[in-house]
C-alpha cells in the first residue's frame, strides 16, 4: 500500500498488522462510529438496505475467495444460498429447530455441497467447471421446489423470527447489528486467509497450477478447501437471509441472483477483499438507484412496467463497461483516488503496491 513518507516498521510482526498508521486508526475509528450511529439516524428503508448489504457481503466475499483468489469459476452461488435457506426452512417447519441448530446445519450442508460440487474442479477448468456448478444450482433449487409442493407450501415457506433464549430478533435495529457483526467476521476471516499460507496456495493455483504443485501445494486439496470455505460462508449467509426476510421461496434463488454475485466481484475488482465490499454496496444499491433516478426523471406510468427489464439490462451493461474500461474494478478507481490525495499536490504515482 502506498504510504506518505516517514513511516518505518521495526519488526516483521509490525508488518503483519492490518491497521498500520495512526491516521488509519483514526479513519477506522470514524468508520466504526459511523456504522454504529447509522441506524439511529437512517430511515427504515436505508436501514433495510444496509442490512441487505451486510448479509450479501458474506456471500460476495466467499465468492471472492473461490473465484477471485483460488480462480475456480462458480455459477452455482445462488445454489449455495438456496441450500442454506432451505435447510433453515425445512428444519424450522419439520422440527421447529431454533437458530443455533439451523445456522451450523446450513454450514454443514454447504460444506458437503462444496465437496461434492468442488470435485469436478479437479478435472475441469473455466467454462466447463462453471457449467458443472450451474448444474448444482438447478439441483438444489429443484429439490427446494419439490419440498415446497409436496408439503403444500406452494407459495413459499414462512419462517418465524429467530430467538436466542427469551430474546426474539425482530427489531430492524438488532438485525442491522447482527448482520454487521456477521459481515465483519466474514471479512476478517477472509482477509486473514488471503494473507497467510492457505491464501498464498490459492493464488498460486490460480496463477499457475503446474508451478503450485511443483512448490509442494496439494492442488486438489486446496481447490476443495476453497470450494468448502466459499460454500460454508455462502450457506450461512443464505440461512441468515432466510431469517431476515422471514420467507423462503424458489423464485428468490434464480440464476439472476448468481449473476448479481458474479457482478459484485467483477465490478468490485477480482482478487481483492476490498473489491468484494465495494462491489456488494454497488450492486445492492443499483436497483434502488435506478428506481430513484426513474422517479426523479418522472418516467411516465406506462413505462414503469419496464423498470425491471431496465435493471436487468443495466447490470449487463455496467459489467461490460467495467470489463472494458476498468478491469481492475472499483478498487482500481478507489486506489487512484486515494493515491491522488496521499501525494497531493504532486502528481507522480507512488512506487510499489
Amino acid at each position, binding site marked *: 500500500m502506498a504510504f506518505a513518507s516517514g513511516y518505518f516498521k521495526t519488526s*516483521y*510482526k509490525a*508488518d*503483519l498488522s492490518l491497521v498500520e498508521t495512526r491516521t488509519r486508526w483514526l479513519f477506522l475509528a470514524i468508520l466504526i462510529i459511523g456504522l454504529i450511529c447509522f441506524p439511529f439516524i437512517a430511515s427504515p428503508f436505508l436501514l433495510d438496505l444496509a442490512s441487505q448489504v451486510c448479509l450479501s457481503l458474506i456471500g460476495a466475499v466467499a465468492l471472492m475467495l473461490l473465484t477471485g483468489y483460488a480462480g475456480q469459476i462458480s455459477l452455482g452461488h445462488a445454489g449455495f444460498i438456496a441450500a442454506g435457506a432451505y435447510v433453515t426452512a425445512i428444519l424450522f417447519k419439520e422440527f421447529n429447530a431454533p437458530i443455533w441448530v439451523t445456522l451450523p446445519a446450513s454450514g454443514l450442508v454447504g460444506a458437503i455441497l462444496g465437496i461434492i460440487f468442488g470435485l469436478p474442479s479437479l478435472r475441469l477448468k473455466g467454462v466447463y467447471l462453471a457449467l458443472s456448478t450451474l448444474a448444482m444450482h438447478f439441483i438444489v433449487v429443484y429439490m427446494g421446489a419439490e419440498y415446497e409442493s409436496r408439503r403444500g407450501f406452494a407459495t413459499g415457506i414462512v419462517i418465524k423470527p429467530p430467538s436466542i433464549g427469551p430474546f426474539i430478533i425482530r427489531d430492524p435495529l438488532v438485525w442491522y447489528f447482527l448482520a454487521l457483526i456477521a459481515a465483519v467476521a466474514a471479512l476478517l*476471516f*477472509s482477509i*486473514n*486467509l488471503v494473507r*497467510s*499460507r*492457505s*491464501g*498464498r*496456495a490459492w*493464488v*498460486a493455483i*490460480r*496463477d*499457475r497450477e*503446474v*508451478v*503450485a*504443485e*511443483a*512448490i*509442494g*501445494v*496439494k*492442488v486438489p486439496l486446496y481447490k476443495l*478447501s476453497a470450494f468448502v*470455505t466459499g460454500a460454508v460462508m455462502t450457506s450461512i449467509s443464505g440461512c441468515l437471509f432466510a431469517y431476515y426476510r422471514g420467507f423462503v421461496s424458489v423464485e428468490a434463488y434464480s440464476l439472476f441472483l448468481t449473476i448479481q454475485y458474479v457482478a459484485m466481484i467483477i465490478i468490485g475488482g477480482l*482478487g481483492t477483499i476490498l473489491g468484494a465490499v465495494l462491489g456488494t454496496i454497488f450492486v445492492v444499491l443499483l436497483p434502488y438507484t435506478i428506481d430513484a433516478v426513474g422517479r426523479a426523471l418522472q418516467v411516465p406510468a406506462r413505462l414503469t412496467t419496464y423498470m425491471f427489464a431496465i435493471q436487468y439490462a443495466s447490470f449487463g451493461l455496467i459489467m461490460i463497461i467495467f470489463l472494458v474500461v476498468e478491469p481492475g474494478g472499483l478498487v482500481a478507481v478507489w486506489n487512484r483516488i486515494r493515491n491522488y490525495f496521499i501525494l497531493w499536490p504532486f502528481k507522480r504515482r507512488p*512506487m*510499489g*503496491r
Partner: protein
Amino acid sequence: MDKPIDLSIKAISLAIGGLKILSGISFDVYKGELLALIGPNGAGKTSLLNCISGIYNPTGGEILFNGMDLARRTSHEVAEAGIARTFQLTELFKHMNVLQNLLSGRHLKMKSGLLSNGFFWGKTIKEEVEHRQAVEKIIEFLELGKYRKTESAGLPYGTQKIVGLGRALAMEPQLLLLDEPSAGMNRQEKEDIARFILRIKHEMGLTIIWVEHDMQLVGDLADRIVVLNFGTKIAEGKPDQVLSDPTVIESYLGTRAGAK
C-alpha cells in the same frame, strides 16, 4: 568417483504420443556437485528436468533419490522429497509481490491449517514471522531488497528469474534443478547469476543440475557436464574434456563444409 551419489538416473525414456523425446538416458549426480546439462535446442534437457521434478512421468527407467524412485511420483511428492526447481520462463505467481512469491516457496515448511489461518491465531502469526525471517535471508542473499513489495509481473525479466531462483531456495531443497537461469540476461546479470550459483553450491552445499546454453558459463563453473542430443546422452565428463569432444562440437556447430 568416490563421492556419494545424490541422484541416479537409470535408462530414462520418455515418449509423448508417437514422439520419442528421451531414450535410455543414464547418469549419476554426486552430492554437492554442479552438473551442467547441455545440448542443442530440442535435445530433451527440459524434458529430463520435467521427468525428475514429476511434471512428466517417464515411459521407462528409474530416477533414484534417497532410496525413492521419482519416476512415478507427482510433482508435489518430488517437492516433499527435497527437490526444488526453477523454470525457463520464470513462471512467477504474477498476482503476488516478491515477498509473497518467496513465502509461497515455504509452503511445505509451514504447517498451519485453514482455520488457524482464518482466525490468525498465535500459531499462524508465529509461523508468518518465522518464515518471513527465513525469506529475508534469501532476499539478502539474492540482493532483492528493493523489490520486496513490488508486484512480480512488473519486474525486469532478469530480476524475475532471480525471484524464481529465490522461490526454489526458499523450499530449502537438497537438490536444485535450474532450467536455463541465464537465458535472456545481459552480461552483468549473467555474472550475478554465476556468482549466486557458486555461492549456493559452496555456502549452502546444494547439489545442482543446471541446464544451460551459455558455453562460456558452463566451461567456467560446472564440475561435470552431461551432453544430450536428440534425446540420447552423447558425452559426460569434465568440462575441458567434454567441450573439446568432436561429437559434442559436431552436434553444436555441425561439421565444416566440405570436411567430409
